[in-house]
Protein backbone atom coordinates (compact mmCIF):
# COMPACT_ATOMS: atom_id res chain seq x y z
CA UNK A 1 0.00 0.00 0.00
CA UNK A 2 2.89 2.34 0.73
CA UNK A 3 4.30 3.99 -2.34
CA UNK A 4 7.64 4.94 -0.82
CA UNK A 5 9.17 1.72 -1.95
CA UNK A 6 12.94 2.46 -1.78
CA UNK A 7 13.34 3.23 1.93
CA UNK A 8 10.73 0.81 3.14
CA UNK A 9 13.08 -2.01 3.95
CA UNK A 10 15.43 0.36 5.78
CA UNK A 11 12.77 1.40 8.25
CA UNK A 12 9.89 -1.04 8.07
CA UNK A 13 6.60 0.75 8.71
CA UNK A 14 5.24 -0.84 11.87
CA UNK A 15 1.87 0.86 11.69
CA UNK A 16 -0.05 -2.29 10.95
CA UNK A 17 -3.07 -1.12 12.88
CA UNK A 18 -4.09 1.01 9.92
CA UNK A 19 -5.57 -2.15 8.50
CA UNK A 20 -9.05 -2.58 9.86
CA UNK A 21 -11.19 -4.22 7.24
CA UNK A 22 -8.94 -7.20 6.51
CA UNK A 23 -8.53 -8.43 10.11
CA UNK A 24 -12.21 -7.78 10.72
CA UNK A 25 -13.18 -9.96 7.79
CA UNK A 26 -10.73 -12.63 8.90
CA UNK A 27 -12.05 -12.94 12.44
CA UNK A 28 -15.71 -12.36 11.56
CA UNK A 29 -16.54 -16.07 11.49
CA UNK A 30 -15.10 -16.75 14.91
CA UNK A 31 -16.60 -13.57 16.38
CA UNK A 32 -20.07 -14.72 15.37
CA UNK A 33 -19.42 -18.23 16.71
CA UNK A 34 -18.04 -16.82 19.94
CA UNK A 35 -21.02 -14.54 20.45
CA UNK A 36 -23.65 -17.16 19.61
CA UNK A 37 -22.24 -20.30 21.18
CA UNK A 38 -20.11 -19.00 24.02
CA UNK A 39 -20.80 -15.48 25.25
CA UNK A 40 -24.57 -15.62 24.91
CA UNK A 41 -25.01 -19.07 26.53
CA UNK A 42 -22.64 -18.07 29.33
CA UNK A 43 -24.73 -14.99 30.09
CA UNK A 44 -28.13 -16.65 29.90
CA UNK A 45 -26.79 -19.66 31.83
CA UNK A 46 -25.86 -17.39 34.67
CA UNK A 47 -29.25 -15.66 34.49
CA UNK A 48 -31.16 -18.96 34.34
CA UNK A 49 -29.33 -20.23 37.39
CA UNK A 50 -31.30 -17.65 39.39
CA UNK A 51 -34.65 -18.69 37.88
CA UNK A 52 -37.00 -21.66 37.81
CA UNK A 53 -36.87 -21.86 34.01
CA UNK A 54 -37.95 -25.19 32.56
CA UNK A 55 -36.85 -24.64 28.98
CA UNK A 56 -40.23 -23.43 27.74
CA UNK A 57 -42.68 -20.70 28.70
CA UNK A 58 -42.32 -18.08 31.37
CA UNK A 59 -40.04 -18.21 34.37
CA UNK A 60 -39.54 -16.41 37.63
CA UNK A 61 -36.48 -15.21 39.38
CA UNK A 62 -35.97 -17.19 42.54
CA UNK A 63 -32.82 -15.53 43.79
CA UNK A 64 -30.31 -17.93 45.28
CA UNK A 65 -32.88 -20.68 45.84
CA UNK A 66 -31.32 -23.01 43.30
CA UNK A 67 -27.95 -22.72 44.95
CA UNK A 68 -29.28 -23.20 48.46
CA UNK A 69 -31.34 -26.18 47.27
CA UNK A 70 -28.20 -27.68 45.76
CA UNK A 71 -26.51 -27.42 49.13
CA UNK A 72 -29.17 -29.71 50.57
CA UNK A 73 -29.49 -32.01 47.57
CA UNK A 74 -28.03 -35.39 48.46
CA UNK A 75 -28.17 -36.64 44.84
CA UNK A 76 -26.03 -33.69 43.81
CA UNK A 77 -23.59 -34.31 46.62
CA UNK A 78 -23.35 -37.99 45.82
CA UNK A 79 -22.57 -37.11 42.21
CA UNK A 80 -20.02 -34.52 43.33
CA UNK A 81 -18.31 -36.93 45.75
CA UNK A 82 -18.22 -39.67 43.15
CA UNK A 83 -16.75 -37.27 40.60
CA UNK A 84 -14.04 -36.17 43.01
CA UNK A 85 -13.26 -39.78 43.94
CA UNK A 86 -13.04 -40.70 40.28
CA UNK A 87 -10.69 -37.77 39.65
CA UNK A 88 -8.48 -38.57 42.64
CA UNK A 89 -8.10 -42.17 41.45
CA UNK A 90 -7.77 -41.51 37.74
CA UNK A 91 -5.25 -38.66 37.71
CA UNK A 92 -2.41 -40.37 39.64
CA UNK A 93 -2.90 -43.70 37.86
CA UNK A 94 -2.76 -42.02 34.48
CA UNK A 95 0.22 -39.94 35.56
CA UNK A 96 2.30 -42.90 36.73
CA UNK A 97 1.60 -45.07 33.73
CA UNK A 98 2.05 -42.41 31.08
CA UNK A 99 5.29 -41.23 32.67
CA UNK A 100 6.59 -44.79 32.92
CA UNK A 101 5.73 -45.49 29.30
CA UNK A 102 7.17 -42.20 28.08
CA UNK A 103 10.44 -43.03 29.81
CA UNK A 104 10.60 -46.48 28.28
CA UNK A 105 9.76 -45.05 24.87
CA UNK A 106 12.63 -42.54 24.92
CA UNK A 107 15.09 -45.10 26.22
CA UNK A 108 17.90 -45.78 23.80
CA UNK A 109 18.03 -49.39 24.83
CA UNK A 110 14.48 -50.41 24.04
CA UNK A 111 13.89 -51.97 20.65
CA UNK A 112 10.80 -51.53 18.52
CA UNK A 113 9.81 -48.18 19.97
CA UNK A 114 8.06 -46.82 16.92
CA UNK A 115 5.80 -49.85 16.65
CA UNK A 116 5.12 -50.09 20.37
CA UNK A 117 4.14 -46.42 20.47
CA UNK A 118 1.15 -47.19 18.28
CA UNK A 119 -0.15 -49.69 20.86
CA UNK A 120 -0.23 -46.96 23.51
CA UNK A 121 -1.69 -44.41 21.18
CA UNK A 122 -4.61 -46.28 19.64
CA UNK A 123 -6.69 -46.32 22.84
CA UNK A 124 -6.62 -42.52 22.80
CA UNK A 125 -8.12 -42.49 19.31
CA UNK A 126 -11.11 -44.57 20.30
CA UNK A 127 -14.21 -42.70 21.35
CA UNK A 128 -15.14 -42.84 25.04
CA UNK A 129 -18.23 -44.76 23.97
CA UNK A 130 -16.19 -47.49 22.28
CA UNK A 131 -13.76 -47.56 25.22
CA UNK A 132 -16.74 -48.02 27.52
CA UNK A 133 -18.16 -50.84 25.41
CA UNK A 134 -14.79 -52.52 25.19
CA UNK A 135 -14.19 -52.58 28.95
CA UNK A 136 -17.74 -53.60 29.63
CA UNK A 137 -17.06 -56.53 27.34
CA UNK A 138 -13.89 -57.45 29.26
CA UNK A 139 -15.40 -56.94 32.71
CA UNK A 140 -18.89 -58.33 32.18
CA UNK A 141 -20.06 -60.03 35.31
CA UNK A 142 -21.43 -63.21 33.78
CA UNK A 143 -19.67 -63.26 30.48
CA UNK A 144 -16.57 -61.07 30.65
CA UNK A 145 -13.12 -62.38 29.86
CA UNK A 146 -11.72 -61.30 33.22
CA UNK A 147 -14.24 -63.24 35.26
CA UNK A 148 -13.89 -66.16 32.87
CA UNK A 149 -10.18 -66.28 33.58
CA UNK A 150 -10.65 -65.84 37.33
CA UNK A 151 -13.04 -68.78 37.38
CA UNK A 152 -10.75 -70.87 35.25
CA UNK A 153 -7.99 -70.39 37.80
CA UNK A 154 -10.28 -71.43 40.60
CA UNK A 155 -11.51 -68.06 41.81
CA UNK A 156 -15.10 -66.96 42.03
CA UNK A 157 -16.64 -64.33 39.76
CA UNK A 158 -16.07 -60.78 40.89
CA UNK A 159 -19.11 -58.45 40.84
CA UNK A 160 -17.53 -55.86 38.53
CA UNK A 161 -20.87 -54.35 37.64
CA UNK A 162 -23.06 -54.77 40.69
CA UNK A 163 -20.58 -53.51 43.28
CA UNK A 164 -20.49 -49.73 43.06
CA UNK A 165 -16.84 -49.37 44.08
CA UNK A 166 -15.56 -52.07 41.75
CA UNK A 167 -17.67 -50.60 39.01
CA UNK A 168 -16.01 -47.22 39.54
CA UNK A 169 -12.61 -48.88 39.62
CA UNK A 170 -13.19 -50.46 36.21
CA UNK A 171 -13.98 -47.03 34.79
CA UNK A 172 -10.83 -45.59 36.39
CA UNK A 173 -8.70 -48.29 34.79
CA UNK A 174 -10.44 -47.92 31.45
CA UNK A 175 -10.01 -44.14 31.50
CA UNK A 176 -6.34 -44.23 32.35
CA UNK A 177 -5.81 -46.89 29.69
CA UNK A 178 -7.52 -44.66 27.14
CA UNK A 179 -5.76 -41.46 28.17
CA UNK A 180 -2.22 -42.76 28.46
CA UNK A 181 -1.48 -41.97 24.82
CA UNK A 182 -2.22 -38.30 25.27
CA UNK A 183 -0.27 -37.73 28.49
CA UNK A 184 2.53 -39.89 27.13
CA UNK A 185 2.97 -37.62 24.09
CA UNK A 186 3.36 -34.60 26.36
CA UNK A 187 5.88 -36.41 28.55
CA UNK A 188 7.90 -37.67 25.59
CA UNK A 189 8.27 -34.13 24.24
CA UNK A 190 9.36 -32.90 27.66
CA UNK A 191 11.84 -35.69 28.33
CA UNK A 192 13.44 -35.23 24.93
CA UNK A 193 14.08 -31.59 25.79
CA UNK A 194 16.15 -32.39 28.86
CA UNK A 195 19.79 -31.69 27.89
CA UNK A 196 21.73 -34.93 27.37
CA UNK A 197 24.74 -33.39 29.16
CA UNK A 198 22.87 -33.56 32.50
CA UNK A 199 22.63 -37.32 32.18
CA UNK A 200 26.22 -37.65 31.02
CA UNK A 201 27.44 -35.66 34.01
CA UNK A 202 25.28 -37.69 36.37
CA UNK A 203 26.44 -40.99 35.01
CA UNK A 204 30.08 -39.87 35.34
CA UNK A 205 29.27 -39.19 38.98
CA UNK A 206 28.02 -42.75 39.22
CA UNK A 207 24.28 -42.06 39.44
CA UNK A 208 22.15 -45.03 38.40
CA UNK A 209 19.07 -44.82 36.19
CA UNK A 210 16.70 -44.46 39.13
CA UNK A 211 18.72 -41.62 40.69
CA UNK A 212 18.95 -39.94 37.29
CA UNK A 213 15.20 -40.18 36.91
CA UNK A 214 14.53 -38.73 40.38
CA UNK A 215 17.15 -35.98 40.30
CA UNK A 216 17.19 -34.97 36.65
CA UNK A 217 14.17 -36.11 34.69
CA UNK A 218 11.47 -35.45 37.26
CA UNK A 219 12.53 -31.87 38.15
CA UNK A 220 13.19 -31.01 34.49
CA UNK A 221 9.73 -32.03 33.34
CA UNK A 222 7.90 -30.39 36.25
CA UNK A 223 6.06 -27.86 34.02
CA UNK A 224 4.79 -30.67 31.80
CA UNK A 225 3.76 -32.73 34.81
CA UNK A 226 1.78 -29.75 35.94
CA UNK A 227 -0.01 -29.49 32.61
CA UNK A 228 -0.73 -33.21 32.48
CA UNK A 229 -2.24 -33.14 35.96
CA UNK A 230 -4.27 -30.03 35.21
CA UNK A 231 -5.64 -31.29 31.90
CA UNK A 232 -6.45 -34.71 33.30
CA UNK A 233 -8.16 -33.25 36.36
CA UNK A 234 -10.35 -30.99 34.27
CA UNK A 235 -11.08 -33.83 31.90
CA UNK A 236 -11.99 -36.19 34.73
CA UNK A 237 -14.30 -33.65 36.35
CA UNK A 238 -16.40 -33.55 33.19
CA UNK A 239 -16.34 -37.24 32.34
CA UNK A 240 -19.61 -38.69 31.21
CA UNK A 241 -19.61 -40.66 27.91
CA UNK A 242 -17.28 -43.33 29.30
CA UNK A 243 -19.61 -43.94 32.23
CA UNK A 244 -22.61 -43.86 29.91
CA UNK A 245 -21.23 -46.75 27.87
CA UNK A 246 -19.50 -48.72 30.62
CA UNK A 247 -22.07 -48.88 33.41
CA UNK A 248 -24.44 -45.98 32.78
CA UNK A 249 -23.68 -44.56 36.19
CA UNK A 250 -24.62 -47.86 37.78
CA UNK A 251 -25.22 -49.98 39.61
CA UNK A 252 -28.40 -48.00 40.10
CA UNK A 253 -27.43 -44.36 40.42
CA UNK A 254 -24.40 -44.86 42.65
CA UNK A 255 -21.90 -43.83 39.98
CA UNK A 256 -23.76 -40.88 38.56
CA UNK A 257 -21.28 -38.11 37.94
CA UNK A 258 -21.71 -34.36 37.85
CA UNK A 259 -22.21 -33.94 34.12
CA UNK A 260 -24.68 -36.78 34.12
CA UNK A 261 -26.51 -35.11 37.00
CA UNK A 262 -26.63 -31.84 35.04
CA UNK A 263 -27.84 -33.66 31.95
CA UNK A 264 -30.55 -35.48 33.86
CA UNK A 265 -31.91 -32.56 35.85
CA UNK A 266 -31.70 -30.21 32.89
CA UNK A 267 -32.90 -32.34 30.04
CA UNK A 268 -34.76 -35.29 31.57
CA UNK A 269 -36.60 -33.40 34.30
CA UNK A 270 -36.68 -30.07 32.50
CA UNK A 271 -35.24 -28.09 35.42
CA UNK A 272 -33.03 -25.85 33.32
CA UNK A 273 -32.65 -23.24 36.04
CA UNK A 274 -31.58 -25.79 38.62
CA UNK A 275 -29.25 -27.55 36.19
CA UNK A 276 -27.67 -24.20 35.30
CA UNK A 277 -26.95 -23.58 38.96
CA UNK A 278 -25.31 -27.03 39.18
CA UNK A 279 -23.28 -26.16 36.06
CA UNK A 280 -21.98 -23.02 37.68
CA UNK A 281 -20.95 -24.95 40.74
CA UNK A 282 -19.01 -27.29 38.45
CA UNK A 283 -17.46 -24.29 36.74
CA UNK A 284 -16.39 -22.80 40.07
CA UNK A 285 -14.79 -26.10 41.05
CA UNK A 286 -12.93 -26.29 37.74
CA UNK A 287 -11.69 -22.73 38.12
CA UNK A 288 -10.62 -23.41 41.70
CA UNK A 289 -8.72 -26.48 40.50
CA UNK A 290 -6.99 -24.43 37.83
CA UNK A 291 -6.10 -21.62 40.23
CA UNK A 292 -4.81 -23.95 42.97
CA UNK A 293 -2.66 -25.81 40.48
CA UNK A 294 -1.33 -22.54 39.04
CA UNK A 295 -0.31 -21.40 42.52
CA UNK A 296 1.32 -24.73 43.33
CA UNK A 297 3.11 -24.69 40.01
CA UNK A 298 4.44 -21.21 40.57
CA UNK A 299 5.68 -22.15 44.01
CA UNK A 300 7.43 -25.23 42.65
CA UNK A 301 9.07 -23.24 39.87
CA UNK A 302 10.26 -20.49 42.16
CA UNK A 303 11.89 -22.88 44.56
Amino acid at each position, binding site marked *: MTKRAPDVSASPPRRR*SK*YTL*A*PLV*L*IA*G*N*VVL*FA*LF*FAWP*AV*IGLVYSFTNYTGVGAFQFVGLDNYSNLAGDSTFFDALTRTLLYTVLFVPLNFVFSL*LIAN*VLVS*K*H*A*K*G*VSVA*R*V*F*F*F*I*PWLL*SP*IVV*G*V*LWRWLFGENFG*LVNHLIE*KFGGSAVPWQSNADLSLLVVVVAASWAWTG*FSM*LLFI*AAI*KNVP*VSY*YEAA*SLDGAGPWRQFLNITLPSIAPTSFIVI*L*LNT*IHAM*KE*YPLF*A*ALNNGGPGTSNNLL*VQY*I*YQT*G*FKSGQIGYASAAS*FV*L*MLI*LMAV*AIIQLIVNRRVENR
Partner: protein
Amino acid sequence: MTTTDMPRKVDAEPGRAVPKKRPGVARGGLRRAVPATTLLWVLAAVYGFPVLWFVLSSFKPAGDLFSSLALFPDDPTLSGYKAAWESANFSQYFINTAIVSVVATILTVGVSCCTGYALAKYDNKWLKVFFICILATTMLPGEVMLAPQFLVARDLGLFNSLAGIIFPALLTATGCFMFRQFFLTVPDELVEAARIDGARELSIFLRIMVPISRPIMLTLAILSFQWRWNDYIWPLLMLNDPNKFTVQIGIQSLVGAQNINWSVVLGGSVISMIPLIVVFLVFQRYVMNADINAGLKD
Protein backbone atom coordinates in the same frame (compact mmCIF):
# COMPACT_ATOMS: atom_id res chain seq x y z
CA MET B 1 -11.01 -31.72 26.41
CA THR B 2 -9.71 -28.39 27.32
CA THR B 3 -6.70 -26.55 28.42
CA THR B 4 -5.92 -23.57 30.53
CA ASP B 5 -2.42 -23.72 29.32
CA MET B 6 -2.09 -20.65 27.22
CA PRO B 7 -0.23 -20.15 24.01
CA ARG B 8 2.82 -22.24 23.84
CA LYS B 9 5.24 -22.72 21.10
CA VAL B 10 3.80 -24.89 18.38
CA ASP B 11 6.27 -26.74 16.27
CA ALA B 12 6.54 -24.62 13.17
CA GLU B 13 6.60 -27.62 10.91
CA PRO B 14 5.06 -30.64 12.54
CA GLY B 15 6.13 -32.72 9.58
CA ARG B 16 9.78 -32.21 10.33
CA ALA B 17 11.46 -34.72 12.54
CA VAL B 18 12.10 -33.53 16.06
CA PRO B 19 15.82 -33.62 16.83
CA LYS B 20 16.46 -36.66 18.96
CA LYS B 21 18.11 -35.87 22.23
CA ARG B 22 17.55 -39.05 24.12
CA PRO B 23 18.88 -39.41 27.61
CA GLY B 24 21.07 -42.28 28.50
CA VAL B 25 24.25 -43.60 27.04
CA ALA B 26 24.24 -45.66 23.89
CA ARG B 27 26.83 -48.11 25.14
CA GLY B 28 25.82 -50.99 27.31
CA GLY B 29 24.61 -53.26 24.56
CA LEU B 30 22.52 -56.31 25.15
CA ARG B 31 22.74 -56.17 28.94
CA ARG B 32 20.74 -52.96 28.90
CA ALA B 33 18.64 -53.62 25.83
CA VAL B 34 16.99 -56.73 27.24
CA PRO B 35 15.29 -55.27 30.35
CA ALA B 36 14.23 -52.06 28.60
CA THR B 37 12.86 -53.89 25.58
CA THR B 38 11.09 -56.45 27.75
CA LEU B 39 9.44 -53.76 29.86
CA LEU B 40 8.41 -51.86 26.74
CA TRP B 41 6.78 -54.85 25.11
CA VAL B 42 5.11 -56.15 28.25
CA LEU B 43 3.48 -52.74 28.61
CA ALA B 44 2.62 -52.63 24.92
CA ALA B 45 1.00 -56.06 25.20
CA VAL B 46 -1.04 -54.94 28.21
CA TYR B 47 -2.21 -51.84 26.36
CA GLY B 48 -2.78 -53.57 23.06
CA PHE B 49 -4.54 -56.64 24.40
CA PRO B 50 -7.99 -55.13 25.15
CA VAL B 51 -8.32 -53.81 21.59
CA LEU B 52 -6.95 -57.00 20.09
CA TRP B 53 -9.33 -59.16 22.12
CA PHE B 54 -12.23 -56.88 21.25
CA VAL B 55 -11.51 -56.89 17.53
CA LEU B 56 -10.89 -60.64 17.39
CA SER B 57 -14.08 -61.30 19.34
CA SER B 58 -16.03 -59.34 16.78
CA PHE B 59 -15.22 -62.05 14.23
CA LYS B 60 -16.66 -64.80 16.39
CA PRO B 61 -20.11 -66.14 15.59
CA ALA B 62 -22.71 -64.98 18.12
CA GLY B 63 -22.90 -68.47 19.65
CA ASP B 64 -19.18 -68.57 20.43
CA LEU B 65 -18.98 -65.14 22.01
CA PHE B 66 -19.44 -66.33 25.56
CA SER B 67 -18.33 -69.91 25.33
CA SER B 68 -15.00 -69.78 23.57
CA LEU B 69 -12.03 -68.22 25.27
CA ALA B 70 -9.83 -68.82 22.27
CA LEU B 71 -8.00 -65.69 21.22
CA PHE B 72 -8.55 -66.40 17.55
CA PRO B 73 -12.06 -67.26 16.39
CA ASP B 74 -12.43 -70.89 15.31
CA ASP B 75 -14.50 -70.05 12.30
CA PRO B 76 -14.30 -66.31 11.67
CA THR B 77 -17.46 -64.70 10.46
CA LEU B 78 -18.57 -61.25 9.45
CA SER B 79 -22.12 -61.86 10.65
CA GLY B 80 -21.75 -59.40 13.54
CA TYR B 81 -20.65 -56.69 11.12
CA LYS B 82 -23.40 -57.53 8.69
CA ALA B 83 -26.01 -57.44 11.46
CA ALA B 84 -24.66 -54.15 12.79
CA TRP B 85 -24.56 -52.53 9.38
CA GLU B 86 -28.10 -53.58 8.55
CA SER B 87 -29.71 -53.17 11.93
CA ALA B 88 -30.67 -49.98 13.66
CA ASN B 89 -29.85 -47.79 10.70
CA PHE B 90 -26.15 -48.14 11.30
CA SER B 91 -25.18 -47.23 7.76
CA GLN B 92 -27.21 -44.04 8.11
CA TYR B 93 -25.44 -43.23 11.40
CA PHE B 94 -22.15 -43.78 9.68
CA ILE B 95 -23.01 -41.40 6.84
CA ASN B 96 -24.28 -38.78 9.29
CA THR B 97 -21.10 -38.97 11.35
CA ALA B 98 -18.97 -38.76 8.23
CA ILE B 99 -20.85 -35.65 7.06
CA VAL B 100 -20.54 -33.98 10.46
CA SER B 101 -16.86 -34.83 10.86
CA VAL B 102 -15.77 -33.82 7.38
CA VAL B 103 -17.78 -30.59 7.16
CA ALA B 104 -16.92 -29.55 10.72
CA THR B 105 -13.25 -30.27 10.11
CA ILE B 106 -13.07 -28.23 6.91
CA LEU B 107 -14.87 -25.29 8.50
CA THR B 108 -12.85 -25.51 11.72
CA VAL B 109 -9.59 -25.38 9.80
CA GLY B 110 -10.91 -22.47 7.75
CA VAL B 111 -12.09 -20.22 10.58
CA SER B 112 -9.12 -21.09 12.77
CA CYS B 113 -6.68 -20.26 9.99
CA CYS B 114 -8.30 -16.86 9.35
CA THR B 115 -8.48 -15.99 13.03
CA GLY B 116 -4.97 -17.21 13.79
CA TYR B 117 -3.54 -15.15 10.95
CA ALA B 118 -5.37 -12.01 12.03
CA LEU B 119 -4.20 -12.46 15.63
CA ALA B 120 -0.61 -12.95 14.55
CA LYS B 121 -0.16 -10.33 11.86
CA TYR B 122 -2.33 -7.36 12.80
CA ASP B 123 -2.07 -5.40 16.01
CA ASN B 124 -5.40 -3.66 16.42
CA LYS B 125 -6.58 -3.17 19.99
CA TRP B 126 -9.81 -5.06 19.49
CA LEU B 127 -7.89 -8.05 18.20
CA LYS B 128 -6.18 -8.29 21.57
CA VAL B 129 -9.55 -8.13 23.26
CA PHE B 130 -10.83 -10.91 21.02
CA PHE B 131 -7.76 -12.96 21.79
CA ILE B 132 -8.64 -12.78 25.48
CA CYS B 133 -12.19 -13.82 24.61
CA ILE B 134 -10.83 -16.91 22.91
CA LEU B 135 -8.67 -17.68 25.91
CA ALA B 136 -11.82 -17.50 28.01
CA THR B 137 -13.43 -20.33 26.05
CA THR B 138 -10.75 -22.70 27.32
CA MET B 139 -11.59 -21.81 30.91
CA LEU B 140 -15.25 -22.68 30.53
CA PRO B 141 -15.69 -26.12 29.01
CA GLY B 142 -18.77 -26.83 26.95
CA GLU B 143 -20.06 -29.40 29.44
CA VAL B 144 -20.57 -26.59 31.92
CA MET B 145 -22.89 -24.74 29.55
CA LEU B 146 -24.87 -27.67 28.19
CA ALA B 147 -28.28 -26.28 29.06
CA PRO B 148 -27.88 -22.68 27.87
CA GLN B 149 -25.96 -23.77 24.77
CA PHE B 150 -28.75 -26.15 23.96
CA LEU B 151 -31.37 -23.43 24.36
CA VAL B 152 -29.46 -21.03 22.12
CA ALA B 153 -28.97 -23.66 19.45
CA ARG B 154 -32.64 -24.61 19.68
CA ASP B 155 -33.76 -20.99 19.37
CA LEU B 156 -31.56 -20.63 16.29
CA GLY B 157 -33.50 -23.49 14.73
CA LEU B 158 -30.58 -25.90 14.87
CA PHE B 159 -32.32 -28.55 16.95
CA ASN B 160 -32.45 -31.96 15.31
CA SER B 161 -30.19 -31.00 12.43
CA LEU B 162 -26.65 -31.97 11.61
CA ALA B 163 -25.88 -28.25 11.33
CA GLY B 164 -26.70 -28.02 15.02
CA ILE B 165 -23.81 -30.35 15.76
CA ILE B 166 -21.43 -28.73 13.33
CA PHE B 167 -21.70 -25.00 14.04
CA PRO B 168 -21.27 -24.83 17.81
CA ALA B 169 -18.17 -27.02 17.44
CA LEU B 170 -16.29 -24.71 15.09
CA LEU B 171 -14.94 -22.31 17.68
CA THR B 172 -11.83 -23.98 19.01
CA ALA B 173 -9.21 -22.10 20.94
CA THR B 174 -6.70 -24.84 20.10
CA GLY B 175 -7.10 -24.25 16.38
CA CYS B 176 -6.71 -20.49 16.69
CA PHE B 177 -3.61 -20.90 18.89
CA MET B 178 -1.99 -23.36 16.55
CA PHE B 179 -2.35 -21.03 13.58
CA ARG B 180 -1.46 -17.92 15.57
CA GLN B 181 1.75 -19.50 16.81
CA PHE B 182 2.61 -20.65 13.32
CA PHE B 183 1.99 -17.28 11.68
CA LEU B 184 4.05 -15.54 14.35
CA THR B 185 7.03 -17.49 13.04
CA VAL B 186 6.42 -16.25 9.49
CA PRO B 187 8.57 -13.12 9.00
CA ASP B 188 6.62 -9.86 8.76
CA GLU B 189 8.91 -8.91 5.89
CA LEU B 190 7.12 -11.44 3.73
CA VAL B 191 3.84 -9.63 4.26
CA GLU B 192 5.48 -6.22 3.78
CA ALA B 193 7.11 -7.31 0.56
CA ALA B 194 3.80 -8.50 -0.82
CA ARG B 195 2.19 -5.19 0.17
CA ILE B 196 4.89 -3.28 -1.64
CA ASP B 197 4.19 -5.37 -4.71
CA GLY B 198 0.66 -4.07 -4.46
CA ALA B 199 -1.02 -7.20 -3.19
CA ARG B 200 -4.24 -6.66 -1.29
CA GLU B 201 -4.54 -7.85 2.30
CA LEU B 202 -6.87 -10.75 1.73
CA SER B 203 -5.03 -11.98 -1.30
CA ILE B 204 -1.78 -11.98 0.69
CA PHE B 205 -3.56 -14.21 3.13
CA LEU B 206 -5.12 -16.49 0.54
CA ARG B 207 -2.25 -16.73 -1.92
CA ILE B 208 0.77 -16.74 0.37
CA MET B 209 -0.21 -17.55 3.93
CA VAL B 210 -2.78 -20.27 3.41
CA PRO B 211 -0.49 -22.40 1.26
CA ILE B 212 2.47 -22.22 3.64
CA SER B 213 0.36 -23.19 6.64
CA ARG B 214 -0.46 -26.60 5.18
CA PRO B 215 1.28 -28.62 7.96
CA ILE B 216 -0.77 -26.87 10.63
CA MET B 217 -3.93 -27.37 8.61
CA LEU B 218 -3.27 -31.07 8.40
CA THR B 219 -2.54 -31.40 12.11
CA LEU B 220 -5.63 -29.50 13.14
CA ALA B 221 -7.70 -31.42 10.60
CA ILE B 222 -6.70 -34.73 12.16
CA LEU B 223 -7.45 -33.51 15.67
CA SER B 224 -10.73 -31.96 14.66
CA PHE B 225 -11.79 -35.08 12.79
CA GLN B 226 -11.15 -37.13 15.91
CA TRP B 227 -13.10 -34.76 18.18
CA ARG B 228 -16.12 -34.74 15.90
CA TRP B 229 -16.09 -38.41 15.14
CA ASN B 230 -15.96 -39.29 18.84
CA ASP B 231 -18.31 -36.61 20.11
CA TYR B 232 -21.20 -37.94 22.14
CA ILE B 233 -22.96 -35.64 24.53
CA TRP B 234 -23.68 -32.70 22.23
CA PRO B 235 -25.09 -34.85 19.39
CA LEU B 236 -27.13 -36.69 22.01
CA LEU B 237 -28.71 -33.41 23.05
CA MET B 238 -29.21 -31.98 19.59
CA LEU B 239 -30.69 -34.99 17.83
CA ASN B 240 -33.88 -36.85 18.52
CA ASP B 241 -34.68 -38.17 15.07
CA PRO B 242 -33.06 -41.63 14.80
CA ASN B 243 -32.37 -40.96 11.11
CA LYS B 244 -29.95 -38.22 12.14
CA PHE B 245 -28.12 -40.08 14.91
CA THR B 246 -24.37 -40.34 14.84
CA VAL B 247 -22.45 -43.59 15.26
CA GLN B 248 -21.60 -42.92 18.92
CA ILE B 249 -25.23 -42.42 19.85
CA GLY B 250 -26.11 -45.53 17.87
CA ILE B 251 -23.60 -47.67 19.74
CA GLN B 252 -24.57 -46.24 23.10
CA SER B 253 -28.25 -46.98 22.41
CA LEU B 254 -27.28 -50.58 21.59
CA VAL B 255 -25.45 -51.05 24.92
CA GLY B 256 -28.21 -49.24 26.75
CA ALA B 257 -30.74 -51.79 25.58
CA GLN B 258 -32.23 -54.31 28.01
CA ASN B 259 -30.74 -57.31 26.27
CA ILE B 260 -27.46 -56.39 24.72
CA ASN B 261 -26.82 -58.08 21.41
CA TRP B 262 -23.08 -58.23 21.81
CA SER B 263 -22.49 -59.51 18.33
CA VAL B 264 -24.03 -56.33 16.88
CA VAL B 265 -22.37 -54.07 19.46
CA LEU B 266 -18.92 -55.48 18.77
CA GLY B 267 -19.36 -55.26 15.00
CA GLY B 268 -20.71 -51.72 15.17
CA SER B 269 -17.96 -50.55 17.52
CA VAL B 270 -15.21 -51.94 15.35
CA ILE B 271 -16.75 -50.36 12.24
CA SER B 272 -16.91 -47.04 14.08
CA MET B 273 -13.21 -47.04 14.88
CA ILE B 274 -11.96 -47.89 11.40
CA PRO B 275 -11.99 -44.34 9.95
CA LEU B 276 -9.98 -42.93 12.86
CA ILE B 277 -7.43 -45.71 12.80
CA VAL B 278 -6.98 -45.23 9.05
CA VAL B 279 -6.60 -41.46 9.39
CA PHE B 280 -4.14 -41.96 12.22
CA LEU B 281 -2.01 -44.53 10.43
CA VAL B 282 -1.83 -42.38 7.31
CA PHE B 283 -0.98 -39.14 9.12
CA GLN B 284 0.84 -40.65 12.07
CA ARG B 285 3.94 -38.51 11.81
CA TYR B 286 1.94 -35.29 11.98
CA VAL B 287 0.12 -36.32 15.14
CA MET B 288 3.24 -37.64 16.82
CA ASN B 289 5.22 -34.49 16.12
CA ALA B 290 2.49 -31.98 16.83
CA ASP B 291 3.11 -30.07 20.01
CA ILE B 292 -0.23 -30.88 21.51
CA ASN B 293 0.80 -28.89 24.56
CA ALA B 294 -0.95 -26.14 22.66
CA GLY B 295 -4.01 -27.77 24.11
CA LEU B 296 -6.85 -29.83 22.84
CA LYS B 297 -10.36 -28.63 23.08
CA ASP B 298 -13.41 -30.42 21.91
